[in-house]
Structure formats: structure tokens, C-alpha cells
């Protein structure tokens, strides 16, 4: 259906363009050349837009309505109980859709199912025809309306440019819409997590923020009432911070010294060789690094630990942290490189004139001058490490241990979000909503880090420009 609809859209839009242009060219032929206000192509474009906009609007508005109607019509044939229970409702709906599509493989079909499927199919059928007819009709009306208005004085270009401007603003607004979407989706579910009274096992805000036990997996059925669900956020926070700090300990010195060497010491040739190395490292997908961490680095660390008689967990925080550190080296290095390069040469020259060596100049003049930028680079790196998912999902553990020992297994916020949300989930259990609450914390923390970092960068940039 959608395919045919958009085929018709394309046909009508093209037709509108050519008809509009022909019409305008006809005007030129009839009268004297050059008397048109706008070029013929603009008349064509405006006519095409008049066909496009109503068709897209009709599709976007009417299709969901038709689907909704078809579903509610079909569910009318079932027990009211079925419609009330989300699980049964989904199952019934899938059966109806399968029967309607002729793919039912489950043997005998009940009469209820048959009539429901028939109703579903016919509603969809008629609904689609109505959408189709309305869309085409409105498009034709739009085309005819513009055609009737086209004249030598008609300001097609101005109208069309106004339309284009609206499109441009809409595209730019997608960024805002995305942010709003993120904020609302996590905020809404987080609110339900804390304050929805119908939710079993929900924690209070302080239990969540200061609890030291995290155990969302416990079943919430009555017969398993003994198992305590706990939504204490602290072990996740310490786990995340532990892995992040290992990563920063690795990436901080390595990234910073790489940046210093590349921007202050390296010859053009060395840079030409080393820069791609960092770029390749930056381009390696995190799932690949996760594979490396889980299957190569973790066993290696475990082996060394055994050699020294240390008890190392097979999913130690150290392995995940080390590889994550490797991931953010290029990040820190390229951001620091930028800020170090932005330090004016005159500062360096001044230091050299006083007899300072190169390293003294760097340590005592360049780095202090670049410090705000470097701090913000580190903050962005921390924010990236906190939000990184695949490395920790593959190399870190699931058990929420409250520990600061890098050889133990810890879990992180992102690991828990992924663990809870992968697979089927209902949106009315505290467990699922807990993932959104974690997502909210994650979004909030990284947002703050980014905002502060960007603020520092902007402030710093003003000093030297």
C-alpha cells in the first residue's frame, strides 16, 4: 500500500511540475517573452509542491487512524477481557493479522478469529482506498488551484521560496524534536517508575539514589514474594566510575602525550604516519573492541593474575577499563591537539626568548594556556566513557558488586539498561521502567558534562580570537 501510494505521489509531483511549467511557458508564448514574474520552472515547482504537501499530510494523519480503526474493529469481536489485557491483546492481534495476510499456520481457525480477520482486512482495504482517494483528490485540487492562479504577474518564486524556507526550518527543528523526544521518553517513564502507585516494587527516590543493592531481576509474582527486588543505584554508579577511571588513567596520559608530541615535536612525516593510526583507532566500532576485551584482554589479565597468585574475575573491571581507555585515546588526543594548536605562537616564542627548553615551554606555558581546553577534552572523554555500552556489555559483568577492586567484576549503568531492555518487556513493570530511570541518569550526567565542557571551550576560545 505505502509503496503504491508513494509511487502515485511521485507521478503527481512530476506531473504537477511539468503541467505548471508548460502553463507558464504557454503564457510566454501567448504574450511577449520575458513578461513573467517568475521563471517557468518556479511555476512548475510550486505546482508540484501543491501536490506533494497534501498527499504527505493525508498519509501521515490518516494511515495511523485507519490502522487504529481496523484494530479496534477486529478486537470488538473478542472478549472485552482480551482487549483489556495487553498480552492477550497483542497475541490476538497477531493472529488476526496472520489470518488476514493468509499466513495462518496454527491449524483450525475459530469463527471469532475468522470474522475478526475479515473485518480487519475489509476495514484496512476500505480505509486504504479512502486515504488513497483523499490524497489524490487533494493533490489534484492543489494542482488545479495553482494552475488557475498562474499568470504573468503570479509571484511563484516568492511563494515557492517561502515554502522552501518552511521546509528548512522544519529540518533544523528535527534536532530540537529529537532532544524533546529523548527528554520526554526517559522523563515520562522515570516519573512512572518513582510515582506510579499502581506499580509493584517501585522504590522511592532516596532508595534509588542511595540504595546499595541492585537486583531488578527478581520476579514480582506473588508466589516468589520472598525474593527482594532492590533498585539501589550506588553499585552501578561505583562500577561505572571504576571502569571510567581506569579508562581515563590509561587514556589520559597516553592521549595527552600523543597530542603534545604530535603538535609540538613531530615532523610533518611522522604526523602523516601517526595521525591515520589514531584515526583508524577512532573508527573501530566499539563492538569490535568489546570482542577484543572479552576474548583476548580479559583471559590475558586473568592469566597474569594467576601467575602472581591474584584472584582475578573472568570479567574484571580492569579488562573493560583498559580497552575503553584505548577507545578514548584518539578522542582525548585529537581534542587536546586542537587546543594546543590554538595556543598562539607568540607565547611559545616568548618562552624560548627567555631560554626555556621546548619541554619547559610546553609544561610551563603551553599547557597552562591550553588547560581549560584540555579539561573540557577530559570531561567529554569521561562522558563518552560513561555512556559507552558495547565494551562493558561484552567484557564487564552483570553482578552489581559494590567494590573498588579493579580485579573484581562490576556492572555499569549501560550494561543494566541493555540487560533489562533486550528481549520482550512490558511497560508496566518496575524492572523495565528502572532502565528508563537509569537512562535518565545517564542522559542527565552526560548532558551536564557536555554542557560544562562546551561552555569552557567557548569561553576559552574567546580569549585568543
Amino acid at each position: 500500500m505505502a509503496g503504491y501510494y508513494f509511487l502515485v505521489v511521485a507521478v503527481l509531483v512530476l506531473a504537477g511540475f511539468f503541467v505548471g511549467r508548460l502553463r507558464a511557458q504557454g503564457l510566454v508564448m501567448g504574450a511577449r517573452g520575458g513578461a513573467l514574474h517568475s521563471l517557468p520552472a518556479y511555476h512548475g515547482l510550486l505546482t508540484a509542491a501543491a501536490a506533494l504537501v497534501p498527499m504527505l499530510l493525508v498519509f501521515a494523519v490518516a494511515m495511523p487512524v485507519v490502522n487504529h480503526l481496523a484494530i479496534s474493529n477486529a478486537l470488538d469481536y473478542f472478549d472485552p477481557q482480551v482487549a483489556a489485557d495487553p498480552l492477550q491483546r497483542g497475541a490476538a492481534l497477531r493472529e488476526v493479522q496472520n489470518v488476514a495476510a493468509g499466513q495462518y499456520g496454527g491449524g483450525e481457525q475459530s469463527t471469532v478469529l475468522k470474522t475478526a480477520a475479515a473485518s480487519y482486512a475489509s476495514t484496512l482495504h476500505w480505509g486504504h482506498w479512502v486515504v488513497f482517494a483523499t490524497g489524490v483528490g487533494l493533490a489534484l485540487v492543489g494542482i488545479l488551484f495553482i494552475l488557475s492562479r498562474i499568470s504573468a504577474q503570479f509571484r511563484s518564486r516568492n511563494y515557492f521560496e517561502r515554502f522552501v524556507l518552511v521546509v528548512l526550518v522544519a529540518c533544523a527543528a528535527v534536532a530540537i524534536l529529537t532532544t524533546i523526544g529523548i527528554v520526554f521518553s526517559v522523563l515520562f517513564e522515570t516519573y512512572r517508575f518513582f510515582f506510579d502507585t499502581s506499580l509493584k516494587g517501585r522504590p522511592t527516590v532516596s532508595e534509588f539514589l542511595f540504595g546499595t543493592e541492585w537486583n531488578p531481576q527478581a520476579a514480582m509474582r506473588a508466589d516468589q514474594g520472598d525474593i527482594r527486588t532492590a533498585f539501589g543505584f550506588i553499585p552501578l554508579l561505583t562500577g561505572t566510575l571504576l571502569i571510567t577511571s581506569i579508562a581515563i588513567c590509561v587514556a589520559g596520559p597516553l592521549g595527552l602525550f600523543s597530542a603534545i608530541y604530535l603538535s609540538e615535536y613531530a615532523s610533518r612525516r611522522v604526523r602523516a604516519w601517526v595521525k591515520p593510526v589514531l584515526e583508524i583507532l577512532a573508527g573501530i566500532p566499539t563492538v569490535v573492541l568489546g570482542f577484543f576485551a572479552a576474548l583476548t584482554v580479559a583471559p590475558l589479565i586473568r592469566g597474569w593474575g594467576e601467575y602472581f597468585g591474584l584472584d582475578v574475575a573472568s570479567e574484571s573491571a580492569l579488562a573493560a577499563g583498559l580497552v575503553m581507555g584505548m577507545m578514548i585515546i584518539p578522542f582525548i588526543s585529537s581534542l587536546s591537539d586542537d587546543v594546543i594548536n590554538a595556543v598562539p605562537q607568540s607565547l611559545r616564542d616568548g618562552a624560548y626568548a627567555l631560554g626555556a627548553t621546548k619541554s619547559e615551554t610546553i609544561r610551563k606555558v603551553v599547557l597552562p594556556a591550553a588547560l581549560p581546553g584540555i579539561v573540557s577534552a577530559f570531561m567529554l572523554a569521561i562522558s563518552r566513557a560513561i555512556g559507552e555500552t558495547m565494551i562493558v556489555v561484552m567484557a564487564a559483568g552483570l553482578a552489581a558488586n559494590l567494590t573498588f577492586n579493579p580485579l573484581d567484576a562490576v556492572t555499569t549503568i549501560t550494561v543494566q539498561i541493555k540487560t533489562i531492555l533486550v528481549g520482550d518487556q512490558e511497560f508496566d513493570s518496575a524492572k523495565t521502567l528502572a532502565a528508563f530511570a537509569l537512562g535518565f541518569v545517564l542522559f542527565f550526567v552526560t548532558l551536564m558534562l557536555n554542557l560544562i565542557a562546551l561552555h569552557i571551550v567557548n569561553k576559552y576560545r574567546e580569549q585568543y580570537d
Partner: protein
Amino acid sequence: MTDIAALTGDGPIRHRQGDAAAARVRRRYRAEARFKAYGIAALVVTTVFLVVLLADILVKGMPAFTQHSVTLSVPVPAEGFGDRSVSAIRGADYFPITRDALKAAIPGIESRSGERTLTRLLSTGAPDVLRDRLVANPSLIGTTVQVPLLLSDDADLYFKGVGTRIDSRAARGTATPSGTTGEITIESTAGDFGADLATVRKAIAQQVLRLTAEADRAQSSGATDAVARVAALREEIATLRTRLDDPKSQEELDSKAPSLLVAINDGLVKITKLSDTAVSGDVLLPLSSADPAGAGAWRVVTYLTPESNRKVTDQDVAFLERFKDLGAVHRDFNWLFFSSGDSREPELAGIRGALVGTALTLLVTLALCVPIGVLAAVYLEEFASKNNLTALIEVNINNLAAVPSIVFGLLGLAVFLNFFALPRSAPLVGGLVLALLVLPTIIIAARAALKAVPPSIKEAALGVGASHQQAVFHHVLPLAMPGIMTGTIIGMAHALGETAPLLMIGMIAFIVDVPAGLTDAATVLPVQIYLWSDLPEVAFQAKTAATIIVLLLFLFVMNGMAIWLRKKFERRW
């Protein structure tokens, strides 16, 4: 001058100052060299890490690009194919046909367990080749066909070197086997097994020493159960001692030691009991006769990796080695890896489904984020007035670029799946989420490209009477296009490697079929990597690494294209 010299004793002061200054300068130069060395060390560590990472994946992944199969002449019976229509041929039972072909290749295997072991060496998908051939050419029914049959993952790994090293030495005496199948004894006239017996005995002697030490420790520890423990240990030591002292004793071999076998009369016997001149054991490959074999006509074979440390049993190894000696085993490029979907059997699993899923997902992403990203950039760079709304949009874009990708997954789950009820696991939703994810990247790159076009171009257009939009769309945008395309490719490469948000919207299901449309359940390359990396089979590890190689190749090609575009169209104004 003299006063100063008198004050400070003999020797000129300036000389001493020079000494201190020189030392200071030396120290400063050393600090300089150290500082520089830190920088070099940081770069070296990073490079080494990258090289180790790539080498590790290459070494792990390359074996998965080839696959072993055993080519057999398979007699296809005339019956069992119904009316010989395509559907009847497709539905026929091929398992007995391949099983009989296997049995014919190694004659003399009568026992049920031997037969089972033999058929287990083939992949469950092995008969598919035969089926496809018969479907393509039904006239082959009733004839004998040469067919390459796919080996199972363990057998395949054995030939790739994850099995055992095999040693073999010619024997000196004349050996007489007591039978051709089942459990037999072999007597040798010379002490052919003396060396092996000595090895076993040495191990026993070492164990005696170890146990004695343990008994001494237990005695001196003074624990409550020490007496009983010491008694038990002493008894064990005594048994071992008697075994050691009896020169005629037979030693039993277990699966923790290297396997010892005898290759005699075209057969193979696995030794279970060993003495100086005689062995007894199970026949793995039937002997052609029970005739005595002279010196040099029979060999003692050792599988060096103990049986308990490998996935293939001695029986498996015997069969596989026999196939190899028959010249039936081939190593070919693993086309199946690129032509089949996911599977629970490692040797049948392929990445076609993931490749198609990736293509569909990226298509949606490209179709959405290029127009939206470029138009948004055009608006912000060329048309937006400097007001609060514009500032808000800019802050938004910069922040979205740094939001963790998993949060976009939450957005997709809550908005696209839950609110708009779009299908789970579909490339459509995956593409939507990735589009939102890479949109900031593309907007930022496109803005930079637009900014790099000198204002004189636009001003010239405006000067000859173009409208603002005409100037931008006819002149500025085409000139910025190479930069925008470079940014787009880099954004797409980013989307190609992204995993976490796709897990959130359910693109993680086990999907065998290759997706055919935007709303079919699908998976993508990075998710496939994640899925396979979790599986316990060793063969899947190689598949995972091979998939990573494919993914990295795509990324390198894309990034190479971006660099090429930048080089080719780079313009200094």
C-alpha cells in the same frame, strides 16, 4: 678580584658556577629528552595496541574464510524420490544416502557407535549440496555422484590445526594381532613399547614422589584427620610401588595422557593396556587381516594432545586421518559464509542476513539524514537570523552529538516502538534511530563545508540579481557538496559500526531468513558480531572475527572513499 678569591678559598668562582650551570643545563636537557620520550612512548603504545588488535582479529578470523569438506562418490538410489518432481526431490531423505556413502568409504565399520561417530563428522547441512545438485539435474538419480560433503565444525577445526599433533615411528619387531575388529591384543617380538612404558612409569614414579611429599606434609601438619589421610596416601603409594616393581605389569592408559595407537595391516588400534612387548586395545579402523606384520610394516602412532584436552576423540581423528589419506578432504573458500543466514550450526552460519539487514538499515538512514541534515545546515548557516531559537538549535545539535548512543535506543524503544507501534527488529526503525544518531555529525560537517565556500561566490550571485535562495542552492551548495559528501560518508561509517541502540529496538533476535523488506525482522553486522561472540562453540569465535574483518573492510573502504573525495575535490580559495 683578589678579595673575592680570598673569600672563597682557592680556585676561581666562575669555574665552579660554570660547573653548577653546566650540570643544570645537562639536567634540563635530560628532562627535555625524557619529556620527548614520553610522547614517543605514548604513540608507540597506542600503535602497538592497534596492531595487536588488528593482528589478533586477523589471526582469529582468517580460518573462518575457508572450510573443509570431504568429497565422496555417493551412489544415489533410484527409489525414494517419489514422482521426481522438484518438490519430491527437495523433500527426499538424504541422510541415509550420505551415511551409506560414508560407510562405503571406510569399510568394516559395523558397530552402531562407530557409525554414529562417522556420521557425526559431517555437518547436518552436508546433504544440501547433493539435494541442490539433484534438483538442478534429476537425471543424476540412480547414478553415482561425486559430491563435496561439508564437515562438522569440530572436524573442520581439526584440519585447521585445533586438534592434535601426530607422531609416528616404525616398529622393529614382528607384530601379531589377535583379531581384526573389537578388542584385540598385539604381541611384538621386540620391545617396541618399552619407551612408552618407560614414559608411563616415569609419570607413576613422579606421582609416588608427589604423594610421599604430601604424606610427609600431612604428618607434620598435625591436623585432626592427619592420621587417616596419611594412611590413605601410604596405601596409594604402596600400590603404585608394586606396579613399578613388577617388570611384567601391564599399565593402563587414560585420556589424560597422549593417545598411543598402532597402525597395522591397514587398520588402527588404540592402545588401552601396555606392557613391554604386548599391547591390547580397541580397533578404531578395522584391520585387513590378522596376519603377523614384519619390522617396518607396522607403526606406533602417538596423538600428542591428550584426548581429554580436545574436542575430537581418537576415533574421530582416526576417521579424519583416513579421509585425508584417501585424498578426499578439500579446503575451499567458504562461500556459505556469504550466502547463508544465521544458523545454530557454526559451519552453516553465514552473514548474508546481516549484510542485507545492514544495507536496508543504512539505506533508511541515508535517505533520512542526508536531506534533513543538509537542509538544516543550509538553514543554520545561510538563512537563520541570530536569535534565541537559532542558538537553542545549535546548542541542541552540539549536545546531541555527545549523547550516549544507548539513549537513542531508549528513544527508539519508547517513541517508535511503543508510541508509534512500528514493528520490532525492523530495518525501518533501526534506520530511523541511526538517522537521528548521525544527524548531528552530518549537520556539523555540512555547516563546515558551507562555511568554507567564500562569501564572494554568494555575493557575486546576489550581485547579478539572484534571489538569496538561488544564490545558495545554485552556487554555494554545489561548491560545498564534496565536503558534505565526505561528512556523510563518515557519518554513515559511524552508523555502520553502531550496535547499542539497535539492541534496544530488538534487532538482536535470532533470524535465519534474509530480510526482504524494510519491515521484516533483521539484524545487522555489528549485532551479529555481538550475538556470535556470546556463543560457546569455538568455531563461532572464528566466525565472529571473520565478520569483524568484513565490517572493518567496509569501514576502511568508506573512510578511504571519504579521504579520496576530500583529496580530489579539495579547493583552496
